[in-house]
Each structure stands twice: as C-alpha cells, then as structure tokens.
C-alpha cells in the first residue's frame, strides 16, 4: 500500500499511541498509526440500527444461496468462454 507523511502534534501522537496499545492488547497483534487511524475512522458515524437491519436473519436456505452464487458465477464463466472462443 502506498504511504505518505502527515504532521500531527506531539500530544495527538501520544493519544494515537495509547489507542494503538489498546488495539494491540485487544487483538494481540501489532498496531501501527495506519491501523489506529483506520480504526478510529471506521467508528465515525456508525449507525447501529442500519447495521442490525442489514444483518437481520432472513428465511432463506443457505444451500439456495450457495446454488444461486454458483449459478451466477457459471453464467459469467460461460460468457467469458464464449467470448474467448470468438
């Protein structure tokens, strides 16, 4: 991933380090400034109700979902092969 440099105050840098330490303690993995800023941004303006609605259980058999996914991908594959055969 391409990176760039930004300037922040020493005070803010220390606060970001604290969040990094918390992330590391929770996940057990090293967290750098990139991880910290991503984590903080990901929490901005989150809408719990919308997420719950998105993830609400639906009455569909998983085997049907899998079958539809395979069917769709087979359609794409068929088109690709027909295109390549031309």
């Amino acid at each position: 991933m391409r990176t760039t440099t930004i300037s922040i105050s020493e005070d803010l840098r220390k606060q970001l380090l604290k969040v990094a330490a918390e992330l590391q303690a929770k996940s057990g993995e090293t967290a750098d400034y990139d991880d910290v800023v991503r984590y903080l941004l990901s929490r901005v303006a989150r809408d719990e109700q919308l997420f719950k609605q998105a993830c609400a259980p639906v009455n569909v058999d998983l085997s049907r979902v899998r079958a539809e996914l395979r069917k769709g991908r087979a359609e794409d594959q068929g088109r690709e092969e027909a295109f390549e055969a031309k």
Partner: protein
Amino acid sequence: MLLGTPGSRIISDPLLLGSPIIAYTCHFNLSEAEYVLCRLLGRTQARSKVDNLVRSNYINLTDAGRLYANAAEIKFERSLALGECYTVANAKVTGSIALFAFQEEELKSEMERKPFDVEILFIEGLPRTGSPS
C-alpha cells in the same frame, strides 16, 4: 452476513460490541451479494439490506488504489471467479484476512495448488461461538 446466519455472527457480533476488528469489502463483492439476494428475496429487500450495510459505516469500502489490478492479476494466474479474486485482492491491499462464506472446491484446489500470500478463512469452518482472534 447479509443473511444473518449464525456463522456470520462471528463477525457481526464483535463489530456491534465495538471490537477492534476492521471489516472491508468492495463494490464488486457488494454487487455480487446484491444480485444473489435479489434472486432469493426480491429487489426491494436485497437493495435495502445492501444499502443499510453500506450506510451503517460498519464496513469499509476499499475500491481505491490498485485493487482492480490486484484482482486482475489473481484472475489471470488462477482458476477463480472474479468475485473471489476481488476478495483475495482486497485482503492483500488492506493487509486483512480474506473471509469466504463457503468452502468452494475451486478455491480449495487453488489453495492446495499454490498457497495465497494472504490468510484465507471460511465462515462455514469457523466455530459458532466466541470471537475471532
């Protein structure tokens, strides 16, 4: 996750509880999810679910950078559906784990033929309780 299956709650529950997990997807994968849901639930419910997921800001959309090129490279080298290529490419670009709902044979064969340079997990193979590490 959009189906609210018990297996998918290993991701959605920690997200709701404020876990430091960062979840990513891309427009290609959202499109694939929506058309499959469309065929099973109808347009209105499918659109509503995907829109709500995006607008909730719980999932990071990562379509910038070289995602398309990474996906294309994987598609060129491997016998996989483009949607699977985008999932693997997204994991590579974001430094995350590629998470698939189903253990499709083509993907398992490719993993055995030549290991991917990203970690791959399948929801159907994960334990039903507890949080991912």
